[in-house]
């Protein structure tokens, strides 16, 4: 690293070595816990969960739609830079794309571990069902990941080429390989990349909104047997809460990586812009959720009313009031209310973290309550809280995501290289 720094400003990774060790220690603990829990899951089968035939979907499904949302949201933030060319957003383009890729990988891990027959995970690519939202979704996810990787490549390639030019040996091979042989650093090559980046983004936007996340909402909304999900607004709220969590995540990552990895100061204008986006999404998310709730309650459909009673007053109502209302809407809204706070990195990290945690509760409150009320009078009521195995595996898969993200952030030029021959 030292030899590089002497002639080239490319030093991704933690500034503070002690922080690096501490962070990796945390991540390794998460992954180790997850590995043990996964071992228990694999040997004990689905019986290691608290799922039943009454509540067949639980924590893993909630985390799956959470990470799909995080990914779709982060991706849509990236398009502000590379498709809509919003000024000053280019700085967070790659951060957002890379976070979107990792989130999607984590989401797929959650889908995988949730399957009763994990060994048959590839079956949806062999046999299909045109009327099944889930069948369409798995294909959309693959296409979406391909778009994300393509975009990250075109966004980052020129800097990979620059780094490869200035390093030697293994590092040169590594970065050279990532350019896929396109080592030119000329302006034409950059223009070519940007053109294709935009094109991929234009394909990606409808894919992310309507197929990947809207589609995941549709997956639930088509269940006529569950009136709580069975609404046209439901997939829309899905997309809005995805945008909310994705923007909050990108805002948090932007501050943390700029401070801890690049050792630079945060651009208060960019931070303010992201913060205002978060405000907008909170307002829309809360308003649409209120409309959805009102329609449900005004319908006086007993199943709807009872489900909302479970959400608001049931044994898990703390997750609704404290996490969904508190952490994802009210608390961040307070932090975002003052202009000076919106320009303060530490406050915005807190606001971002609050939303990112709060939306987890939003996802749980989507998945679980609809399964508590029996589909027919006379059938048993459901009750569900994840087992330690479910929590442990979830922690492990999130740990894998954090590990992959950190390794990427420590090696890839996620911050556009300033300086060098093109500046």
């Amino acid at each position: 690293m030292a030899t590089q720094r002497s002639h080239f400003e490319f030093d991704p990774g933690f500034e503070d070595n002690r922080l690096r060790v501490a962070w990796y220690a945390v991540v390794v603990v998460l992954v180790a816990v997850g590995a043990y829990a996964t071992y228990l899951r694999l040997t004990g089968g689905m019986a290691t969960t608290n799922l039943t035939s009454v509540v067949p979907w639980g924590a893993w499904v909630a985390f799956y739609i959470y990470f799909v949302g995080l990914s779709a949201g982060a991706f849509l933030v990236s398009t502000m830079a590379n498709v809509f060319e919003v000024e000053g957003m280019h700085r967070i383009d790659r951060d957002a794309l890379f976070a979107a890729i990792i989130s999607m990988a984590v989401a797929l891990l959650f889908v995988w571990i949730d399957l009763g027959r994990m060994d048959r995970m590839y079956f949806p690519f062999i046999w299909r069902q045109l009327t099944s939202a889930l069948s369409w979704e798995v294909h959309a996810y693959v296409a979406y990941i391909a778009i994300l990787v393509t975009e990250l490549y075109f966004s980052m390639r020129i800097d990979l080429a620059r780094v490869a030019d200035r390093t030697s040996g293994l590092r040169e091979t590594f970065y050279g390989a990532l350019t896929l042989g396109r080592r030119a650093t000329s302006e034409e090559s950059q223009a070519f990349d940007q053109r294709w980046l935009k094109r991929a983004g234009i394909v990606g936007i409808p894919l992310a909104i309507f197929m990947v996340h809207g589609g995941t909402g549709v997956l639930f909304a088509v269940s006529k047997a569950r009136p709580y999900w069975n609404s046209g607004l439901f997939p829309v709220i899905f997309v809005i809460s995805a945008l909310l969590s994705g923007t909050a995540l990108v805002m948090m990552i932007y501050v943390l990586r700029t401070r801890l990895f690049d050792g630079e100061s945060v651009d208060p204008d960019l931070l303010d812009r992201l913060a205002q986006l978060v405000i907008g999404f909170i307002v829309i998310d809360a308003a649409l959720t209120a409309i959805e709730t009102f329609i449900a309650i005004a319908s006086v459909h007993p199943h709807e009313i009872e489900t909302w009673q479970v959400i608001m007053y049931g044994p898990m109502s703390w997750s609704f009031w404290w996490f969904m209302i508190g952490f994802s809407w009210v608390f961040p809204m307070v932090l975002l209310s003052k202009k000076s706070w919106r320009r303060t990195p530490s406050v915005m990290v807190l606001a971002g973290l609050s939303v990112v945690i709060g939306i987890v509760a939003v996802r749980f409150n989507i998945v679980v309550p609809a399964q508590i009320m029996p589909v027919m009078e006379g059938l048993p009521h459901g009750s569900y809280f994840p087992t330690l195995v479910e929590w442990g595996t979830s922690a492990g898969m999130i740990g894998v995501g954090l590990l992959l993200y950190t390794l990427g952030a420590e090696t890839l030029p996620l911050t556009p290289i300033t300086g060098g021959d093109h500046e």
Partner: protein
Amino acid sequence: MSTTDDDTLPGIPNVGKADLDAMVENERPDPREELADVEADTDLGVAMAEDAQRVARGELSGDEYWEKYDEAAAAEFGEAYCETPNPAVDAGDQTVTTETAESLSCAVGSMDTVSTESAQIEGDESAGGIGAGDEKWGMVIDLQKCVGCDSCTVACKSENRTPPGVSYNVVMEEEHGEFPNVTRTNVPRPCMQCDNPPCVQVCPVSATYKMDDGVVNIDYDRCIGCRYCNIACPYGARYFDFGENYDDEVDGAGELTSPEYGVDRGSREEGKSPIGNIRKCSFCTHRLERGEEPACVETCVGDARNMGDLENPDSDVAQMADSSRAFQLKEDEGTDPNVYYLK
């Protein structure tokens, strides 16, 4: 207690072995009389039967028997004899020597090879097979006759050998009103075998589908265990097999399984389907295929459950399903169940 012959126990007839043998002999039909009704040669039939008893007693060997009768049987029965596998010739359990087997007039091979071949022929023509019947199976449950005894649930569990947590049939018990004006309705709930099944609609791998006879099948070899159908079923009729067993209650609980949807999967083993799959009532397809009623229908103490062909207007179920008392569960869901109730 005294054990002399005179001292009989009350209620137990005092008969000796000779009496019993005489009773059996009395009941035994006369072979000549029986065989007179069929076209085949009576003398040959009686001779073959008597010698077959000798083979059974060990007085005559299988080889001698077949050498003695092969020609006569071929002459008497012709093609029917030559094209039918001889039960004495069998790959695993042959009772005659190879030389004798080869010298026999029936040259089609053992029972095993013939049954395999005929199965292949059926497969090639893609006719037949499970669920391909002409009937459209339907069930009608008379709620006025149902006493809520749950014996259908028990019969189902023992017929289909479902594990803990999986119960293809349940009886939903509803109590309405306040004491003393209370009514109780028992609504047995199998799989509705809907004409528009939401479970089939959502399965991402088409592992669950309608068969020609109207029964919704689950292909345990394809199901990935995502439980989307479990979520989508408006009747709560689908159950996930979490791999639990009745081992604490019954020794060797998993040794026998039911040949659901006509597939014999042998003993229940960890990691082997249907563990990790979704399961549900199949209208006892395996029983329907051999002409039997589903276990719940057969066992119902009040004769409340009826099974039959809904497309045959003369059938009991079609007429009952047409009556003014008939209704389906959640009719407004548009699922159009093939299970009807009589109110």
